[in-house]
């Protein structure tokens, strides 16, 4: 075998030698391709595995941690929530509409593969600055792709986040998250066991589309991948809707031993992973796989990434039950092989054996790399911020409006009105507050959902930035009245073979892990996306956190908008004067510099506990955390959402601009009836949480005094218009 051959499938000579050792012979062309896709970073996590072990993954409520198609967390009453997030960055960079759509499609399959009914979608998006035409095109089409897929299949897209930064210009990020609900007893796993049981492929037929997709996700984007067209797939949400209903109906028959969706690396990964998990083997015949195109050779069938397909392992003798259910839904289902007990994945084309390798070796024996890491040099320069040289702006009203118009802070309604966030009639809090809240039918409970990550903090300090992503997600859930339960994460980074990138990766994971430990939210599923770079430019480290929380009683559901004239406005936590990494520095001073905001996790935990206790006690009328844009923007958002003004007074002697727009952590703005003030202060004191009355809800303007001086005075309606229309104006 020539050197070129293994390089063509993305393997190194070391990896090739290892394969020869495993097989005791040279692999044939088909076998080599199987290793190529399965040992790619995307499928094998060969570069990230040792680092991911740092994450806390267990907890009382964890029913399924990482390692399956999705994680599962108990919410009581015999019910559980299934969750997972996944990246579709590279396909979306090439074809944003279909890339994003199939991203949504893929993550939905991961959820119903577990036996769960998908009930909500979220997403996390990153693009370059909107001044660029290509960026507008990517943004517009990725949003439409995500929206159309979810809308058509009838799963509400209830939340997400979007940031714009030049570092994403050539390599946008499209991460999709899905959440499902399941009874404990109904959980399915991706396991093939019981020699003689049938291996069936169900759903769409197989074509050449997406061939090489898995390895596609594991290489840097080059001019060439613009040409790499067959790697783009077209989503078919209608087919997936049928597949979803058919699978859930099928699971009720009890004939299913195991099930796995066909995602990256298609049949190869589904067969080897299920067999490997079940410590068994599998004997399949590719000629039995229904095809959409003619002339496909076995290797193409094995690695095709055609969408909307599933592999189902069925009890021997009950194959017809499967066929019956799928027929009812107008779908294909075919027996393509049998489970064996020899541990081998044997691939036949009719009678001829065309490949035979140990199933485990594909799924689990990819080499693990302990990459070199080194603190990157750029941190030296960006870490310092000469605050003295920055002038305090005269027109603070103008600064606030400028921030409200910044696409990173502006209202995302332009996006989410393209998403059907109401279908299933369970969305109690729609997009636009800190977290979405979805009620659980048949109970008094609800779950709160969010995705978060400020990647600028991660760029300045990946450990702190990673921790803040977790803390902010939890804070958003708390503000909605939920107890944070668990995390699914999507780690978007550059090329891990670069020591600087790998350092960022390790730091971010360790920061996230510490925050997860302190806040009691184990990581139960996730995804790693490396090689997010173009030419020489890597993206900011972007470890996106998806989090789910439990609202014990729907009466606890809380939103960010101010509610009633006369209510007291309070701050849990303390104002600081940290300007580093803020949107203010970027928008007004053109700087992405300084230290990321400090995060004291114990204090964060106390603030969150305090807020939730007060919400559960029924004394909190609105709650909103301070994030991008600082306390001024947080107050403005409370005013806009509530359609009512406020009079605020700060005592602080901090620098005015840093006080108003700095992004110090662990702060939540709440409102309450004046008569509940004492009770709130007592609770805060008992929990050792700073609590100050900032003012009261009043009138049609947001008025802010600092140390007795009137500093800001601005009509809620004007702020609302600037904030609401900013993105629409840019998009035209």
């Amino acid at each position: 075998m020539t050197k070129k051959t293994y390089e063509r499938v993305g393997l190194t000579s070391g990896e090739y030698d290892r394969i020869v050792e495993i097989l005791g012979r040279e692999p044939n062309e088909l076998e080599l391709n199987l290793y190529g896709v399965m040992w790619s970073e995307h499928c094998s996590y060969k570069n990230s595995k040792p680092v991911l072990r740092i994450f806390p993954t267990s907890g009382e409520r964890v029913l399924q941690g990482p390692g399956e198609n999705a994680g599962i967390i108990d919410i009581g009453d015999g019910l559980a929530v299934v969750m997972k997030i996944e990246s579709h960055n590279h396909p979306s960079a090439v074809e944003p509409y279909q890339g994003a759509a199939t991203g949504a499609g893929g993550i939905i399959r991961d959820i119903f593969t577990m036996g769960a009914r998908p009930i909500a979608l979220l997403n996390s998006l990153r693009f370059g600055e909107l001044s660029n035409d290509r960026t507008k095109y990517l943004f517009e089409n990725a949003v439409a792709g995500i929206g159309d897929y979810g809308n058509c299949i009838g799963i509400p897209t209830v939340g997400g986040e979007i940031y714009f930064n030049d570092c994403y210009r050539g390599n946008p990020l499209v991460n999709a998250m899905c959440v499902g609900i399941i009874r404990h007893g109904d959980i399915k796993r991706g396991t093939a066991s019981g020699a003689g049981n049938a291996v069936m492929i169900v759903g769409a037929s197989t074509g050449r589309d997406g061939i090489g997709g898995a390895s596609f996700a594991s290489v840097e984007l080059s001019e060439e991948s613009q040409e790499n067209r067959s790697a783009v797939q077209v989503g078919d949400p209608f087919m997936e809707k049928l597949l979803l209903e058919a699978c859930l109906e099928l699971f009720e028959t009890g004939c299913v031993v195991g099930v796995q969706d066909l995602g990256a690396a298609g049949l190869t990964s589904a067969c080897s992973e299920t067999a490997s998990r079940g410590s068994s083997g599998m004997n399949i015949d590719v000629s039995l796989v229904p095809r959409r195109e003619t002339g496909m050779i076995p290797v193409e069938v094995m690695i095709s990434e055609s969408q909307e397909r599933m592999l189902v392992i069925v009890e021997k003798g009950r194959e017809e039950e499967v066929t019956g259910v799928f027929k009812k839904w107008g779908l294909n289902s075919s027996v393509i092989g049998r489970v064996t007990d020899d541990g081998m994945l044997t691939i036949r084309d009719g009678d001829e054996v065309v490949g035979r390798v140990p199933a485990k070796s594909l799924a689990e024996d990819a080499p693990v790399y302990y990459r070199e890491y080194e603190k990157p040099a750029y941190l030296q320069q960006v870490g310092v911020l000469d605050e003295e040289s920055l002038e305090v702006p005269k027109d603070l009203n103008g600064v606030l409006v400028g921030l409200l118009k910044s696409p990173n802070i502006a209202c995302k309604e332009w996006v989410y009105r393209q998403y059907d966030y109401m279908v299933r009639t369970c969305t109690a809090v729609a997009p636009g507050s800190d977290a979405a809240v979805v009620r659980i039918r048949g109970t008094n409970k609800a779950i709160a959902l969010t995705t978060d990550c400020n990647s600028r903090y991660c760029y300045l300090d990946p450990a702190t930035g990673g921790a803040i992503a977790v803390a902010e997600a939890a804070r958003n859930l708390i503000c909605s009245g939920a107890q944070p339960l668990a995390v699914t994460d999507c780690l978007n980074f550059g090329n891990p073979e670069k020591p600087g990138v790998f350092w960022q990766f390790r730091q971010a994971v360790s920061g996230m892990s510490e925050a997860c430990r302190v806040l009691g939210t184990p990581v139960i599923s996730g995804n790693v996306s490396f090689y997010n770079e173009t030419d020489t430019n890597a993206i900011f480290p972007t470890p996106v956190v998806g989090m789910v929380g439990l609202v014990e009683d729907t009466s606890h559901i809380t939103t960010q908008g101010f509610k009633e004239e006369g209510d007291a406005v309070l701050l849990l936590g303390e104002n600081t004067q940290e300007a580093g990494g803020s949107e203010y520095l970027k928008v007004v001073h053109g700087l992405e510099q300084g230290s990321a905001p400090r995060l004291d996790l114990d204090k964060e935990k106390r603030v969150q506990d305090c807020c939730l206790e007060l919400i559960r006690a029924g004394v909190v009328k609105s709650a909103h955390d301070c994030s991008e844009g600082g306390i001024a923007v947080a107050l403005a958002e409370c005013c806009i959402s509530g359609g009512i003004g406020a009079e605020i007074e700060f005592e602080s002697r901090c620098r005015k601009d840093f006080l108003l727009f700095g992004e110090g952590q662990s702060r939540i703005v709440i409102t309450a009836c004046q008569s509940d003030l004492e009770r709130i202060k007592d609770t805060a004191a008992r929990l050792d949480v700073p609590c100050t009355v900032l003012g009261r809800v009043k009138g049609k303007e947001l008025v802010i005094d600092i140390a007795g001086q009137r500093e800001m005075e601005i009509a809620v309606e004007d702020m609302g218009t600037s904030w609401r229309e900013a993105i629409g104006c840019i998009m035209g």
Partner: protein
Amino acid sequence: MKFGVVVFPGSNCDIDCYHALRDVLDQDTEYIWHMTKHLGFYDCIVLPGGFSYGSYLRGGAIARFSPVMDRVVEFAQSGKPVIGISNGFQVLTEAGLLPGAFLRNNSMKFVCENVYIRTENASTPFTKLCGEGQVLKIPIAHGDGNYYVDDRTLKDMEQNNQVVFRYCDAEGEATAESNPNGSLQNIAGICNREGNVVGMMPHPERCMEEILGNRDGTVIFKSVINYLKGGAVND
């Protein structure tokens, strides 16, 4: 009294309509599978929203050839109440039970939001409890909701009082700004000549409970329940 909610492949508001009728309004309700060739006994049939057949080709174009649709047509022709919501409305126009057709929203984008609609005809089975001119706040969620009909038919429809709802602002004015999709004359809902078949783009089943923040949709279904209770006038 029994309601039937038709399930086409790709329907996705079927469960919402079912829930609204059975759980919120406590009505006997059943799903009707699209392959059904013999309809059981129903008093009212609901064609739900969603994306029957993916809304591929055109919304409702393929669904209208489902076997169940022959039965729905007979049911409608017998004078019993039928309502099509969103994609269900599209199915009704494709099937010829209601006039007109749908174009892409003039914004070219799918739109999901609360809108206001004004009741223009309060005498259909589904609007009997609305006052004439009553303004309801009801969400829409569609990409092809831009209603079109030719001039002659429109005149006819207006003469027969077949426009049931128009998009309007909170005060009830049918302005251009309050039209979310470019529909002709702000039309949001219509009925057939006889008034027993109603189609509407907004989703009343999405706003029938306090926890969803709005209960304006209730009046649509309460109307038909009331109508059916009030003695089988048309039977």
